[in-house]
């Protein structure tokens, strides 16, 4: 394997608290040197990174890659390539595939598809319950044995408190988090957007913030009861942020993620019945966006995760009520985050890298998230100031469902390196 020398960049490594000009040498799939004036053997690939940030590769704890079952929307391969183009060196794939990723063979299939693709790493998340039906626990031990890094019934909440309790208890055996999609279905049923003034005006059934917060409160209480690690997916309301903050203050093992759209867009975006603004949880109010940003700042919200959810354009070209929830986000997450968190003064660049890489690795116990010598050579080189216009037809993802089409984002991955190999290079696109 050809060594890679990344020269002259601003090297940010939150795992060691460092931020400054340095060179990074990658050899044999590992980081072999970080410092000034690092010299590489002749024949090494040189990446000139002046003006750019060199950071541990981004890690997305929440994506939907649709394989197996809906390969017309995305595959492990196209999703892993979209991830690499967005600066991600690893993504965690939710188990709501068809069939559901609720057994070791299904987990193994995703692992092997990811190896075959050879782009970003893909870590499967196993289902909490068989078929995500909420009735019988999946075999966590076998899921983990085959490569699963967490369990979740994402797309649906773990509906009964008993099942959630059992899952949190049992997951402790394997040291994995239970990631929950927090939604009280009896409150949310039939809802198409956030319940508020805009839903009133548009005549769309609303999903109240309480539908999320009730389950957040339950999950935190159950995490306290069981000592298990609950990871709360895609937090969207100010009330949720406050509940998590109080839970963390009390030492409960709760971690949480927020998506770029929940810290950048509000429910007004549903105006004109734009189905690319339809997702679950829905876009909320300006005060919620503000609370999510503050939560990311003070660490209440641990990480940014995209909830990358590909859908075919036919499916989105529908009446709002009938269109599916979700948007893709792997190729826009970094640009939205820098524009709306860093340029707005909410987070420093090192803080953002920590939320998008180091802490993500830590809470799901993944390799990466660090530039320490000897660590896997998973690295991103990005321009933190480049302004670029989102062109969905240029996405590597198979799908185009984004509310950011035509938007100007700030910050863009130029090289993404996984296991010491360049898997994405903007200059050759």
């Amino acid at each position, binding site marked *: 394997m050809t060594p890679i020398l990344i020269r002259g960049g601003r090297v940010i490594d939150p795992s060691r608290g460092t931020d400054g000009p340095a060179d990074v040498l990658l050899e044999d799939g590992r980081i072999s040197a970080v410092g000034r004036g690092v010299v590489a053997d002749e024949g090494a690939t040189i990446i000139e990174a002046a003006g750019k940030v060199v950071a541990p590769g981004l890690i997305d704890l929440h994506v939907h890659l649709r394989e197996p079952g809906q390969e017309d929307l995305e595959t492990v391969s196209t999703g892993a390539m979209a991830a690499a183009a967005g600066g991600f060196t690893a993504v965690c794939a939710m188990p709501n595939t068809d069939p559901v990723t609720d057994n070791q063979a299904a987990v193994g299939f995703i692992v092997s598809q990811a190896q075959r693709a050879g782009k970003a790493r893909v870590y499967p998340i196993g289902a909490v319950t068989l078929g995500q039906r909420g009735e019988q626990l999946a075999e966590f031990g076998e899921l983990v044995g085959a490569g699963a890094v967490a369990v979740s019934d994402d797309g649906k909440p773990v509906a009964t408190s008993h099942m959630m309790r059992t899952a949190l208890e049992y997951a402790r055996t394997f040291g994995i988090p239970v990631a929950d999609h927090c939604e009280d279905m009896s409150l949310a049923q039939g809802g198409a957007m956030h*319940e*508020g*003034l805009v*839903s*009133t*005006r*548009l*005549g*769309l*059934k*609303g999903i*109240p913030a309480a539908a999320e917060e009730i389950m957040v409160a339950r999950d935190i209480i159950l995490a306290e009861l069981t000592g298990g690690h609950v990871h709360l997916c895609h937090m969207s309301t100010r009330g949720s942020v406050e509940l998590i903050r109080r839970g963390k203050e009390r030492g409960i093992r709760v971690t949480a993620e927020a998506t770029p759209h929940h810290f950048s867009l509000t429910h007004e975006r549903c105006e*004109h*019945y734009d189905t690319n603004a339809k997702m679950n949880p829905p876009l909320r109010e300006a005060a919620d966006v503000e609370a999510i940003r503050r939560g990311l700042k003070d660490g209440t919200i641990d990480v940014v995760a995209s909830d990358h959810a590909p859908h075919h354009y*036919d499916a989105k*070209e*529908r*009446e*709002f*009520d*009938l269109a599916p929830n979700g948007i893709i986000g792997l190729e826009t997450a970094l640009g939205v985050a820098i524009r709306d968190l860093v340029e707005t003064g909410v987070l420093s660049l090192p803080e953002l890298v920590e939320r998008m890489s180091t802490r993500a690795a830590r809470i799901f116990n993944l390799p990466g998230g660090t530039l320490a010598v000897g660590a896997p050579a998973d690295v991103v080189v990005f321009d933190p100031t480049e302004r670029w216009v989102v062109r969905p037809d240029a996405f590597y993802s198979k799908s185009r469902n984004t509310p950011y089409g035509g938007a100007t984002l700030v910050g863009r991955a130029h090289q993404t390196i996984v296991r010491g190999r360049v898997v994405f290079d903007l200059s050759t696109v």
Partner: protein
Amino acid sequence: MTADATAVPALGKDLIGLETLSAAQIRVILDTAEPFKEVSERAIKKVPALRGKTIVNLFFEASTRTRISFEFAEKRLSADTVNVATQGSSVSKGETLVDTARNLEAMRIDMVVIRHGASGAAKFLGDRIESNVINAGDGKHEHPTQALLDILTLRDRFGELAGLKVAICGDILHSRVARSNIWCLTKLGVEVGVCGPPSLLPREVEALGVTVLPRIEDAIAWADALNVLRLQLERMQAGFIPSLREYNRVFGVTRERLERAPKDLVILHPGPMNRGVEIDSDVADGPFSVILPQVTNGVAVRMAVLYLLAGGTGAVAAAARGETS
């Protein structure tokens, strides 16, 4: 073209809702409806204003009154009309709305009147075809021609609308009629109250510029006119109210309650009525009910909307007389 045509603010391509119309545009529709009222009183109820225009009435939801009212309006303007109901059409074979729209467009039609169960469906269609689109009710969003005919009826009765107090009573949450009425009435200077069980009021409804009247007695004491909405019977199964009987007891518009009012109230209802639920029969059939005049005005209002969207100008009187413009 006549001189006064320039004074008419155009409605645009479609009539999707009243939220986006100005007071001036609403007044143009109401004023245009006036001369068309007379057409329906003639022995030969037909003028040639839309001769040669083809109109599709695309009804994805059951409707009797609105569909027939539109059809009469179209026929009295001499348009060629086709009715499509979802039963027995390609929609029941799974065709999407966008494909239905493209197929209609390919047949070179001029206008589509659409009734659909999903909020936003009329706008969805209007954004995708060049033909004029008229919303005949989309989900819980808007039902603009219903509100326009309600207001035309109020104007007939009261003359001046500004300063009037109208209470909309019942299931505001699920009502497109309520939303269109709120937009339209507030733009014309009418004070609007809404009254219903809190479980059937939408979130932040006050922000639409209305007063919430907690009890039906409050609404009756406050208002000059009540617009009594139909209570969909399935709301009880869905748990919004305990029973129809209790609804009538607590929120029903009854003669006893009206007799305690400080003044006589005009009673509107968009129909179809549930007699003995939201409105008692002796109120619906009583002297202050304008429920049937509403239906009559519905044809005139729809003629006005069709005429204006088809490019009709201020020369309405001429059109109503039967002269082609």
